[in-house]
C-alpha cells in the first residue's frame, strides 16, 4: 500500500487533509495532490498558479493555506484596470497637487512619501515600511501618514500568502509585468522615491511568502509567465467529496439531504454542458445547502416546489 505524502512545509495533517473550521477561518478539504503541489511551491519559492472551473475553491485555497500556516493573507482581485503600479506602489498625484495648492502661505510641503500608496507586493515584501509609506515611523506619525495593515493578519504576522485573484481578467500585459516582482522578489519604486536610500523594495530575508495566482482560463497566459509557476489544476469534485466538504461546513446538517443534493451534481454538470452554461461549483453547492438548512427546505421533484426554485436560483441559474 502506498504511503501518504507527509508534507514538509505545509502544516496540514496527512491523516485527513482537513483544515477544520475555526473562529477565523472556514474549513477546507485538501488532498494529497494539493498538499504535494503547495509543498513544491513552498520548497522552490515559486508562485503557485491555481486553475479550475469557477467556484471550485481556488481562491479559498489561498485562505486555507494562510490559515494552516498561520500566515497573513493579502489578496486582490484583478480587473481590466489593474496594473503593475497598483500592485507595487503608486503615487496619489491628485492629492499631492491639491495639498500643494491649498496649503497656507509660508507652510512647508508634506514629504513626497506621504503620497505613496503601497500596493500588495510592498505589504508582502516589507510590511513594516509599507505601514509608514517608507518613512520613519516618527515622521509618518507627524504627518498622520501611517496606514492600517492591508490584509488579514495571521499568528506569524510577517509571513504571508499573497493572493492575486483572477489574473485572466487583467489586461494581457500584466502577467508579463509581474515577472520581476515574482521572480526577483523586488520591484522599483516610482521615479524620485526612495525607501531607506534604496529605489526599490525587496522581500525581507526573514519573511516567508507564497504567492497564489488563480485563473479561470478565460484568457491565455503568456508562456514565460506559466513557465515560472508551479501549476495546480483543481478538478470538479465528485459527489462523495462534495458530501465530505459540506459536512465540514455544516456539521449538524441533514446528511440525507446533503447527499441527495450532491448526487444531483453530475446531472447538473451534464445539463449545464449541454446548454453551454457554466456548471455549478462548490460555492453554489454550499449556498444551496445553506439555504435548505436555514429554511428547512426538503428536496422535491415537483415543479412548483420551493426546492425547485432554489435549484434554479442557486444551482442551475437557467431561468431569470
Amino acid at each position: 500500500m502506498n504511503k501518504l505524502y507527509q508534507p514538509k512545509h505545509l502544516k496540514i495533517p496527512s491523516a485527513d487533509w482537513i483544515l477544520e473550521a475555526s473562529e477565523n477561518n472556514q474549513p477546507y478539504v485538501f488532498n494529497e495532490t494539493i498538499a504535494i503541489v503547495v509543498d513544491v511551491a513552498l520548497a522552490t519559492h515559486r508562485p503557485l498558479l491555481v486553475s479550475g472551473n469557477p467556484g471550485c475553491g481556488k481562491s479559498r485555497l489561498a485562505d486555507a493555506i494562510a490559515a494552516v500556516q498561520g500566515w497573513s493573507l493579502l489578496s486582490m482581485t484583478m480587473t481590466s484596470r489593474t496594473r503593475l503600479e497598483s500592485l507595487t506602489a503608486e503615487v496619489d498625484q491628485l492629492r499631492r497637487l491639491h495639498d500643494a495648492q491649498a496649503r497656507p502661505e509660508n507652510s512647508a510641503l508634506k514629504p513626497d512619501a506621504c503620497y505613496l500608496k503601497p500596493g500588495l507586493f510592498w505589504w508582502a515584501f516589507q510590511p513594516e515600511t509599507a505601514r509608514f509609506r517608507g518613512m520613519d515611523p516618527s515622521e509618518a506619525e507627524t504627518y498622520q501618514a501611517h496606514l492600517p495593515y492591508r490584509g488579514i493578519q495571521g499568528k506569524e504576522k510577517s509571513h504571508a500568502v499573497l493572493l492575486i485573484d483572477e489574473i485572466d481578467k487583467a489586461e494581457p500585459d500584466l502577467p508579463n509585468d509581474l515577472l520581476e516582482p515574482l521572480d526577483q522578489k523586488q520591484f522599483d519604486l516610482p521615479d524620485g522615491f526612495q525607501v531607506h536610500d534604496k529605489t526599490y523594495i525587496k522581500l525581507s530575508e526573514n519573511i516567508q511568502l507564497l504567492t497564489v495566482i488563480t485563473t479561470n482560463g478565460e484568457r491565455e497566459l503568456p508562456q514565460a509567465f506559466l513557465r515560472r509557476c508551479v501549476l495546480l489544476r483543481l478538478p470538479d469534485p465528485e459527489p462523495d467529496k462534495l458530501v465530505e466538504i459540506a459536512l465540514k461546513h455544516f456539521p449538524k446538517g441533514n446528511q440525507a439531504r446533503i447527499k441527495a443534493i450532491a448526487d444531483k451534481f453530475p446531472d447538473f454538470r451534464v445539463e449545464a454542458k449541454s446548454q453551454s452554461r457554466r456548471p455549478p461549483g462548490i460555492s453554489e453547492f454550499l449556498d444551496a445547502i445553506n439555504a435548505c438548512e436555514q429554511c428547512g427546505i426538503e428536496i422535491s421533484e415537483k415543479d412548483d416546489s420551493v426546492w425547485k426554485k432554489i435549484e434554479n436560483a442557486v444551482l442551475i441559474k437557467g431561468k431569470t
Partner: protein
Amino acid sequence: MEKMRGEIHLGDFAQALASLPWQNDDQAQAIAACLGFGLAPSLPPKPNEGIYDRHSYSQPTPYKPKLPTPPPVFIPPVLEPPPTLPPTKLESQVDSWQTLAPPIEKSPDWLGEKHESVQTINETKIARLSLFPEQTHRHILAAALATRRIGHDIDLPKLMASLCRREVLTQLPCRPEASLERGCDLLLDYSPSMVPFWEDLNGLIEQVGRVVGAANVRVFGFDTRPTEAKRWTGDGKLQGWQVQKRPVLVATDFGISGLQCRAESDPAWHGLIADCTKDGSPLVILIPWPEDRWPKGLGGYPKLAHWSPRTTAAMVKRQIGPGHWMR
C-alpha cells in the same frame, strides 16, 4: 540586484525532489507534473470552439431533470364479437395456378456481390504554418484590437495648461492607454474562394479568444457579403450581426480567389464600412493575399492588414497607433 531566476528548470525539480519527503513514484510524478516536467499536460484542457459564441444566447431553456418514466402498460383492446356466419358453406369459384412465374434458372451475378461499406481513409494531417504564427499572433492581434481609454499616466501638457489657467482639478488629466476590455466581433468569410483558408479561419477564432478572452468574442460567419454575417446562438437560432461599439475584425479575400481584385468591390463592403463608421466601431480587415491584389476604393476607415506570417505587431501599430479611438 539579484539575478533573475528565470523559468522553472531542472534545478527546481532537483531541489524539490531533494528537499521534499516523497515516498513513491506517484508522489514524485506529481512533483514533476506541477513543475511542468510531467508527461501529462498540467494546464487545463482547452474547450472546443465552434463558429458561434457559446457564452451568449438570448433565452436558455430552463433545466428540467429527467424523471424516470414508468414502463408502459399494454391493455389489449376490447374486440367486438365476430359476426355470426351462415350455416351453409359455399364452394370456391377460383382456380389455382401451378406457377405464377417461370423458375429462375440462374440468379444474376450482382445478387451475390458483397457490398463493402465505404472505408474512410486515414489522411495524414500535414503540418501547416498558421498565417499568424504562435509566437507573434498575440502581439499582432492585441495591437489590432486594442482601443484607447483614459489611463493612469499624467498628461503633463494638459496638467500644465490647467495650472496656468488656475483651474480647480477634479481629476487628473491622464494620457490614454491601450486596452482590450471591449473585446471584438469576428466576421469570418466562409465563401468558396476562402476554402484554402478555412483552417486558418478556425485557428483565428482560437487565437482571438486567447488574446481578448473567449467570453469577449462574438464569432459570425458569412458568404461573400459581410453585412449578412450570422451565427448560431446557444438556443439554435440564427442571429444576424449588428455593429455593437466594439472592434470588428474581418477575415476575407474579397472573393478574389488569389486573382487580381475587381475594379469595383461589392457594395456590401461599403455597407459594412458605413455601419462601422456610423457606430464608431474600429474595423480591421485581414486579407490572406498580398497588398497588390487588395480592392481599391474602400476609403481610409477600415485598416487592411496582410494576414501573413510576415506581418508584425509593429506594422499594425504603425497603421493604428496605440489603440483605436472610440467615441
